[in-house]
């Protein structure tokens, strides 16, 4: 693995989330061949790479949606690998999957309320709802509409809002900008920065490197189930390999 950034030991902030050499297998197929990465508190970290490279799998492993055969996943220095998805949420990590998975027949309000299902967040439901409506005023208008009737962009807002309702410390975002119009993509990137200001750490998997690299603090490039490159946004944006492979949008 090529490291372009300053060595890990020199970074002053504490790693909030740390993955060490995790191996994930789907039946006979090995998806992750020993992936290690770290996410610092209050940062936006990205995992970029072509589809099928293992970005989603990495996020799913953290969220407890796929089993990890080897390696460790540590959150705040606690081992959380292979915990059930609902336990991971209680720990403070929420995931927004690539296919959104909204509750289609529930209205916007109920979808949001479901977001704050875990006891810790349920008691603060009203204040969290206010916060989400402030971030996405349109959602307040659409409150009683069924989720399946919303447009793509509206669904995207809802899915982010729903994840925020659980008061996560870390937000995992899988391919959030896929299939979105450029205007909406910019809105999503803006929102991510707003979220970071609220002290939420973000780990995002993205196929389109160009836009995401503008706002990240740190990024990992992943191919074929392995990390091949790591660095800050400045370095990666000017790296010839990255430019060639990923900036041909």
């Amino acid at each position, binding site marked *: 693995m090529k490291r372009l950034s300053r060595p890990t030991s020199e970074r002053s902030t504490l790693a909030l989330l740390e993955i060490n050499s995790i191996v994930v297998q789907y039946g006979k197929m090995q998806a992750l061949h020993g992936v290690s990465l770290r996410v610092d508190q209050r940062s936006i970290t990205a995992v970029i790479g072509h589809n099928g490279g293992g970005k989603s799998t990495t996020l799913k492993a953290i*969220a407890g*949606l796929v089993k990890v055969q080897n390696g460790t996943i540590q959150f705040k220095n606690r081992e959380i690998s292979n915990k*059930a*998805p*609902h336990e991971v*949420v*209680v720990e403070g990590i*929420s*995931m927004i*999957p690539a296919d959104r*998975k*909204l*509750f*289609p*027949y*529930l209205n916007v309000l*109920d979808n949001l*309320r*479901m*977001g704050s*299902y*875990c006891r810790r*967040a*349920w008691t603060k439901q009203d204040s969290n709802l206010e916060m989400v409506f402030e971030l996405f005023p349109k959602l307040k208008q659409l409150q009683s509409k069924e989720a399946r009737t919303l447009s793509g962009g509206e669904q995207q807002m809802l899915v982010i809002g*729903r994840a925020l309702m*659980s008061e996560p410390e870390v937000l995992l975002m899988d391919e959030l900008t896929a299939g979105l119009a450029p205007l909406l993509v910019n809105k999503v990137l803006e929102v991510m920065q707003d979220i970071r200001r609220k002290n939420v750490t973000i780990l995002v998997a993205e196929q389109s490197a160009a836009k995401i690299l503008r706002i990240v603090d740190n990024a990992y490039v992943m191919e074929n189930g392995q990390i091949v490159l790591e660095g800050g946004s400045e370095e990666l944006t000017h790296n010839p390999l990255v430019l060639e492979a990923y900036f041909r949008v």
Partner: protein
Amino acid sequence: MYVLMALGFSLIWGISGMFNFAHGAMYMLGAYISFTLISWGLNASLSIFLMMIIMFLLGVLIERFCIRPFSSYRGTPSYVMNCVIVTLALAIAFETAILLIYGGEFKTVNPVSPGVVILGPFQISNQMVYSFLFGVLSIAAIGLFIKYTRVGLAMRALAQEPTAASMMGLNPDAIYSITFGISSALAGLAGALLAPVYSIYPSVGWVSFLYAFIVVILGGLGSMTGVIAAGFLVGVIKNVGTIWFSGQWMMAIIFGALILLLLLRPRGLFGTRVG
């Protein structure tokens, strides 16, 4: 009363995705348990209430020990088959147990209060009124529970997107248990309320089970209001129909209507999903 049975059945089908063949047995157990409690001198309403709690716990236990071990198969066709077999076995087991404990003869159950109420040209027994009120209140209570409480919301979410639900911090097993418990309590209630009308015997659950099945299909899987509406519809058709036709014909007519309806509207009257 068909509504009660159907509601419980469709809850399990909609949320856990499995057929509970022991549902009829729940009806029967509810009838016998409240019968026993009453015969021990306990007040009728209290007995029924207590019975519902017992049935709820029984449902939770069944889910935990008989259904959950198969949960790794959830979503596959073999899961449904597994559950059918397990619940069928349970039903037979319960029936045999009751047979051994109580004997197989028909027992008549005394109505809560004898006497009738005159309502215009109709004479309605007090028992009917009592059952009706109790039933309607329970249905309303369940409806409110599903709509407004945290657990109710969880049940609805789990039915629609199980993966997403667990990503919200929901422990699916806990909800499945509760669902089973509620379903059993409702079936038991139906059994207890109808006991004075039909008298009880170990196999009494199967007819109700059949009706529950019909009502759920008629009302459409996945729709609470549909099930309620269909339940009332079936109840009305049955009761009104027996004025003109004899009992045997009734079943044939109801089935015929069902087939006709499904041909025209595969989703049932209010269904949101097919099958």
